């Protein structure tokens, strides 16, 4: 794939200059829609962060804000999830998906008024969902607590996104489709199928009783596996080569990684029901799907690693690369952990504990969210013709979130493992186990404060980006000033 920088120096050939202008046109066509999606995503990130902190503090200090029913733990927690999943994650994902598809197919983004309008509708839907949760209208079905009527609104938005995706794909310039395109195309179809059919299974007699739990986890696990994961991987597949300036290591590994993900991830959801009241074969299928996930994960990890080999020094300079590589490494880690966790012997301990919460955040945060941060650092300057106004704040953002996430994961993983072992020993009184976990719940709040500082830095950077406060620079904002010659040698981030 083409890796020449957008911003060519005086030595650019006419062909390079044409290429640069094409990209500027594509980026300009994305501006309205993608900036709407990104700005909304950042807003929901802040909302979700506040809710996360409240929920976390309530866990070790249950008297905190306990007087208000609408802020009781059982409402704040699903509201945090909805704000992060349907607000932050999905909107950052859709913004990135639109821009990537426009770039990959070398088309202008279609529907210049309709696409920004979907962002507005999406926001209203999330806001409506949160209000419903605070008002006590939760469905009490994990990951899909917001009311079923949201399916109509999300469905409309996604229909427009699908139409845009198909149109861009059909009018693509080259016959070849790049690996990121497969993942994006999968995600944009998988999500609506999941969301709408889950509503039908969960709110009609199409599935009944215990089978509703199976439908619940088929849906919930696949939101991660078939919506966030493909968008995240598409972004990694695009940005690593782009920033370091060399192509993806192996086409065949890419192909294998995509199709094995499509085949196996689909089936993994029922590992959430191990020990539960469902047929043993159904649980076993979920475990097999989860263990088979080693195949796509190892494939993708090898492919990304081999692409990066010899280029790790760019991590020092490029904010995009630093976030994206952190995310990619955590994708491998969380997937390995997930496969092991689905084994009955491990699950017997980790199920029903904080271990699972740590695992979920390793996926949605350390992998997906960090990749989205990286994507926004890359895309936003191209849409708004301005650079990030401060490398210092980017460093604050990276280190607080990276370290905060590490503390979060270590603390709850350890606490959860011990909690599970103690719970499986009936001689230990239950309340002793609760007391044991409390210091670790404090460590989570501490990590949460760090991550909050990171998110505020990011929001501040993004706010200044919207106001185009950063300089109009021919080159990117780098974390460390590099020497003249190396800047020329590796101008990939441009």
């Amino acid at each position, binding site marked *: 794939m083409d890796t020449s920088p957008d911003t060519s120096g005086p030595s650019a050939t006419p062909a390079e200059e044409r290429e640069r202008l094409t990209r500027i046109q594509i980026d300009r066509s994305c501006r309205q829609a993608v900036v709407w999606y990104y700005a909304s995503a950042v807003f929901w990130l802040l909302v979700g962060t506040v809710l996360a902190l409240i929920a976390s503090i309530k866990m070790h200090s249950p008297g905190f804000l306990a007087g208000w029913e609408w802020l009781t733990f059982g409402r704040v927690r699903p509201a945090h999830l909805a704000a992060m999943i349907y607000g932050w994650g999905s909107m950052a994902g859709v913004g990135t998906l639109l821009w990537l598809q426009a770039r990959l197919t070398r088309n202008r983004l279609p529907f210049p008024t309709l696409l920004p309008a979907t962002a507005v509708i999406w926001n209203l839907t999330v806001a409506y969902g949160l209000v419903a949760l605070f008002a006590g209208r939760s469905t009490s079905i994990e990951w899909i607590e917001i009311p079923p009527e949201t399916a109509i609104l999300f469905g409309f938005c996604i229909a427009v996104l699908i139409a845009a995706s198909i149109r861009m794909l059909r009018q693509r310039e080259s016959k070849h489709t790049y690996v990121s395109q497969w993942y994006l195309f999968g995600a944009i179809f998988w999500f609506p199928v999941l969301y709408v059919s889950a509503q039908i299974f969960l709110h009609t007699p199409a599935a009944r009783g215990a089978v509703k739990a199976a439908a619940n986890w088929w849906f919930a696990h696949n939101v991660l596996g078939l919506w966030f994961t493909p968008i995240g991987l598409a972004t990694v597949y695009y940005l690593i080569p782009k920033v370091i300036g060399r192509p993806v290591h192996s086409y065949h590994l890419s192909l294998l990684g995509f*199709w094995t993900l*499509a085949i196996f991830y689909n089936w993994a959801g029922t590992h959430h029901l191990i020990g539960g009241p469902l047929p043993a074969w159904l649980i076993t299928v979920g475990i097999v799907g989860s263990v088979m996930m080693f195949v796509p994960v190892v494939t993708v990890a090898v492919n990304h690693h081999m692409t990066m080999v010899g280029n790790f020094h760019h991590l020092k300079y490029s904010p995009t690369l630093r976030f994206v590589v952190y995310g990619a490494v955590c994708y491998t880690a969380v997937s390995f952990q997930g496969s092991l966790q689905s084994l*009955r012997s491990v699950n017997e301990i980790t199920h029903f504990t904080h271990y699972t919460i740590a695992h979920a955040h390793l996926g949605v945060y350390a992998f997906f969210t960090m990749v989205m941060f990286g994507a926004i650092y890359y895309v936003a300057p191209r849409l708004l013709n301005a650079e990030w106004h401060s490398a210092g704040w980017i460093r604050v953002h990276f280190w607080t979130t990276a370290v905060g996430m590490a503390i979060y994961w270590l603390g709850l993983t350890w606490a959860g493992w011990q909690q599970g072992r103690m719970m499986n020993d009936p001689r230990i009184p239950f309340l002793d186990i609760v007391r044991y976990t409390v210091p670790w719940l404090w460590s989570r709040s501490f990590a949460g404060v760090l991550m909050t500082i990171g998110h505020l830095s990011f929001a501040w950077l993004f706010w200044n980006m919207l106001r185009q406060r950063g300089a109009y620079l021919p080159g990117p904002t780098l974390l460390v000033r590099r020497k003249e010659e190396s800047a020329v040698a590796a101008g990939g981030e441009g």
Partner: protein
Amino acid sequence: MNRAWMLALGVFATILASMAGLVLIPEKQLRATAPVKDEERDITLPAGYYGDIEEGRRVYMDLGCIYCHTQQVRPEGFGADIDRGWGVRRSVARDYIYDEPPLMGTMRTGPDLFNIGARQPSAQWHYLHLYQPQITSPGSIMPPHRFLFEVRHSPDGLPEDAVRLPDEFAEKKPAWIVPKDRARRLVAYLLSLDHNYEVPEAR
């Protein structure tokens, strides 16, 4: 891979396959599950949800109890659910046939509640526990649900289910807590949670 139709076909085939395998086929397998007959008491079990119990279940859902409490008992020899006294047998699909949706949960910050009605049959206990969990369970990190109660300081005209607060938990003594309707319904639901009946598939 350059053909869009191949991609689309694969994308749909994979998700429809898992939908069939993880939802539609189990539904077909379990659809005919019927309640069991308790000849002695001349009732069928599970009993289903009616009146206050049904409304109490709604309260349980809207307060998000599910995020800290499961309602499922793992089999003997897998975990210690039965040894902890959370049930006399494992939970089976039959227990959930009237559950719309099932509230199995995935987290045990607090103990399992599948048989809480059998384990803790006192409404008074539940009222105190909901009002301030520390009263009945020192060290608990469950949030207090004071908004489900009214506090009174005079013994005159108290309803029958009012409960005297232990003095150390009362700001002004003496104090009684009077459950609001939602608290009554929630407790009715909790007391109804008793799945210790016999089923053929888990003896």
